[in-house]
């Protein structure tokens, strides 16, 4: 249940996700090894445009990539088609986007403004 447009969208988001995932893992290892506390991490990320853009684009591509992937699984495993399948795809994407955005705001929005 993939056409060329959805296929390309999933591949391109995968290409963007790959370096972002590596960056995310690298930051996690760095933070753990340095013994940074949650407050210290948030002190660096909150109000940072770089981290907002880094994790903002991460959330966007994950929501798109995962929604298309789950669409295929839903169709092949449950036989979902037509409007129900379109609704499922958009619903999954928007749910992931909302959850990701909530986390993004909590981590990168300037302290005291959330």
């Amino acid at each position, binding site marked *: *249940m993939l*056409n*060329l447009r*959805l*296929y*390309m969208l999933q591949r391109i988001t995968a290409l963007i996700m790959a370096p972002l995932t590596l960056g995310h893992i690298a930051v996690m290892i760095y933070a753990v090894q340095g013994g940074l506390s949650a407050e210290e991490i948030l002190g660096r990320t909150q109000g940072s445009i770089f981290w907002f853009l880094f994790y903002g684009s991460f959330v966007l591509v994950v929501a798109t990539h995962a929604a298309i992937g789950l669409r*295929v699984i839903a169709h*092949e*495993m449950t036989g979902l088609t037509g409007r129900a399948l379109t609704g499922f795809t958009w619903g999954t994407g928007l749910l992931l986007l909302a959850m990701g955005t909530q986390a993004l705001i909590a981590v990168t929005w300037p302290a005291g403004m959330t």
Partner: protein
Amino acid sequence: MKPVTSQESELDGQGVTLDVSVWRGTSEGGGYQRFEVPALENQTILDVVSWIQHYADATLTYRFACRVGMCGSCAMMVNGQPRWTCRTHVKKVLKAGAVQIGPLRNLPVIKDLAADMDPFFDKWVTAGGAHAPSATRDDPIPPVDPQDAIRVEASAGIECINCSICYAACDTVAGNPDYLGPAALQRAWTLLNDAKHDAHDQILDAVSGVGGCHNCHSMGSCTVFCPNDLDPMSAIAGLKRETAKSFFRRRK
């Protein structure tokens, strides 16, 4: 040393039988029926099915033609795997003296072991499988270099005899009935690389729809089960590559 024939083998005439389960029914319903079939030293699954039809139940429906692995019409599920029954020796698939024979997977069943091939061939056409000549009969015949890289890609798939083994083996077809399947897509890839075919863009469009090549998960059952040792999975990968290139090219 004198060769042993099927008439005088150690198994023949010893009363040894095979426990054979054969699907009886249609897509609407049915079940496996058991038959005891005399075991022979040299015996194919098609021989077993023919024996049942000749000596046990004349109403058994099945399909075959050449009996030598050229026509592809005797393909069935043997112990859950798609096979040319004329080229499958009983000894190779027998499990504890028993074997299960059913109609091809992923296709409607007309009756018993005869699958309805219509969806398979309809998809073959939908994928752009009909040849569109690039020249008329009045034009000179353009030379084809067999060593040419594009021609090598085209030649890789031309031995397909449309037996539907790959279609029956494909789990993506099982989960997504709209999916065109390995044989149709391999045919599309063959024509796309054929210098004498004139509808390349139409092929790329035909394999880019909701049932197109992008639904393939590259599980590779088509390539594993193809009795002609063809490689539809790589052909489909080629289509994905070319459609991805055309995605950017056509947007310029």
